[in-house]
């Protein structure tokens, strides 16, 4: 139904306006993420830390060690579970979900996350390529596609909400000065790739005989931020009802394939962590999928297989994907809405494009990411590097980073658990070919820009 409310005995359909602050998950990700950051800072400023709550499985080499860890820390895990459950339940019920459906589902998700996280801490995990993001994704896909899960469990598998919350928390671990320093290159690189990828998909799509609105929807899916961009552009240009599901299917297939391909391709090419992260940021299609790939490459880097650190891979990815690509979706939508209404064939329905669309469609969680970065950067300005590493990192930054890791694992598992290949809409050969053409060009140009043109920039990021 249209969003209707009753006012003074009359039924009214209302625009979102300020209600977006509690009706959109972007804002809830901000409230949650910044809430955690502020609480962490308050504890830190008073000589304490949220370290106790931000418990994570420790490194282990035999089962007895693992057992001992959980025997010692189970109360902390219970407390953390209750905290996550409380904040997510509040947010999701405000968004319209039912707590009685979400709570049992989140219990399953948290228990599986503990297992995945613990497996990733095994000292032989790297040897067997048991990277937590990949294990979470593969295990989730196996459960949902082979074993089968009851539909009601989907209530807790909120991929996008978890990744947005994780990105806001990530902001707190990324110095604002780094965003200022690396942001322009990220925007330049991402813009080149986005424009070329869009044009290739659109051009091939139209040449193959696709409707221009579908071609644009596919193009945005490949060029900007995957499924989210595809539905944003489909709405902006007034696409057919079936256009968005077609784009969703194609993006999911490519994005999931790239999660497994890009990190190992980067490893094969011995790309430094920052360069690999930038390549993934340029060539993955959806935020959540890209974080799975970037986190995997970060883990590979931290095992010593390639130069650089885990943070470098994740930071480079984030700058390219979030700052370089995601934030421009409103402008893409506005420009394409103008072209659709002035150049393409008329439809029965329509509207005048408005510049305000740039704001309406802005991925607001990015504000949370930037504000979190600014808060921690300003709060720790007076510390020397030695003091920062000795007292700020373990008591303030590391616990936030650990909570971020939990949010990402919830997300990676949820991707697999919600992706049921047999239920996806049939995409058809032509849309798949058009998107694939852009994906191939995207990977090649992304590599050239990341590993050759801007290699020195990404290799030294956050060193």
């Amino acid at each position, binding site marked *: 139904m249209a969003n209707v409310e009753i006012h003074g005995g009359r039924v009214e359909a209302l625009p979102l306006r300020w209600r977006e602050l509690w009706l959109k998950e972007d804002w809830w990700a901000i409230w949650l993420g910044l809430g955690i950051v502020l609480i962490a800072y308050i504890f830190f400023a008073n000589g304490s830390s949220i370290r106790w709550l931000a418990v994570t499985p420790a490194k282990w080499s035999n089962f007895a060690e693992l057992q001992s860890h959980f025997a010692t820390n189970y109360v902390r895990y219970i407390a953390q579970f209750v905290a996550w459950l409380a904040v997510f339940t509040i947010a999701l019920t405000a968004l319209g979900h039912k707590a009685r459906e979400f709570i049992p589902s989140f219990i399953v998700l948290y228990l599986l996350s503990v297992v995945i996280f613990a497996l990733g801490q095994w000292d032989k995990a790297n040897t067997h390529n048991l990277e937590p993001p990949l294990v979470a994704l593969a295990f989730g896909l196996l459960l949902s596609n082979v074993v089968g899960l009851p539909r009601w469990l989907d209530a807790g598998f909120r*991929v996008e909400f978890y990744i947005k919350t994780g990105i806001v928390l990530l902001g707190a671990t990324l110095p604002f000065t780094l965003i200022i320093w690396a942001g322009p290159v990220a925007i330049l690189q991402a813009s080149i790739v986005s424009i070329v990828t869009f044009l290739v998909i659109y051009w091939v799509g139209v040449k193959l005989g696709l409707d221009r609105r579908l071609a644009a929807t596919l193009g945005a899916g490949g060029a900007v931020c995957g499924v989210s961009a595809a539905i*944003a552009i489909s709405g902006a240009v007034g696409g057919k009802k079936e256009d968005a599901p077609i784009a969703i*299917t194609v993006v999911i297939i490519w994005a999931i394939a790239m999660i497994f391909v890009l990190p190992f391709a980067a490893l094969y090419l011995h790309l430094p962590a920052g360069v690999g992260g930038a390549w993934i940021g340029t060539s993955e299609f959806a935020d959540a999928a890209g974080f799975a790939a970037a986190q995997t490459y970060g883990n590979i880097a931290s095992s010593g297989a390639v130069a650089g650190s885990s943070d470098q891979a994740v930071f480079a990815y984030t700058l390219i994907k979030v700052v370089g690509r995601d934030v421009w979706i409103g402008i893409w939508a506005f420009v394409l809405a103008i072209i659709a209404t002035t150049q393409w064939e008329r439809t029965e329905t329509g509207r005048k494009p408005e510049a305000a669309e740039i704001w309406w469609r802005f991925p607001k969680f990015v504000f949370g990411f930037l504000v979190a970065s600014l808060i921690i950067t300003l709060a720790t300005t007076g510390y020397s590097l030695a003091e920062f590493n000795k007292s700020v990192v373990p008591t303030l930054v590391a616990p936030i980073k650990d909570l971020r890791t939990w949010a990402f694992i919830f997300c990676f598992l949820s991707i697999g658990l919600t992706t049921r290949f047999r239920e996806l809409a049939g995409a058809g050969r032509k849309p798949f070919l058009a998107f694939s053409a852009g994906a191939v060009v995207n990977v090649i140009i992304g590599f050239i820009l990341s590993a050759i043109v801007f290699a020195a920039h990404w290799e030294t990021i956050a060193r």
Partner: protein
Amino acid sequence: MSDEGPQRQCRACNHFRNDAKYLETVFKGLTSLSSGYGSVRSDDGVCLRHDRYLSARSSCADFLPVTSHPIAQKL
């Protein structure tokens, strides 16, 4: 293309469905890598009359006021 006032836009039309939960049901796979609750979607929705996915600010000649909405019938 028209420039109707808010009272005759899709958001106020009974053919229009932009509830996030509804969209997550009809757009198979939407929740795998995205969501119906994100800001980028704005308040777009599906027009059941024309089978299009539209901005809530769109309009057309087939507008049917939301006063025929089930909620209104109960008033």
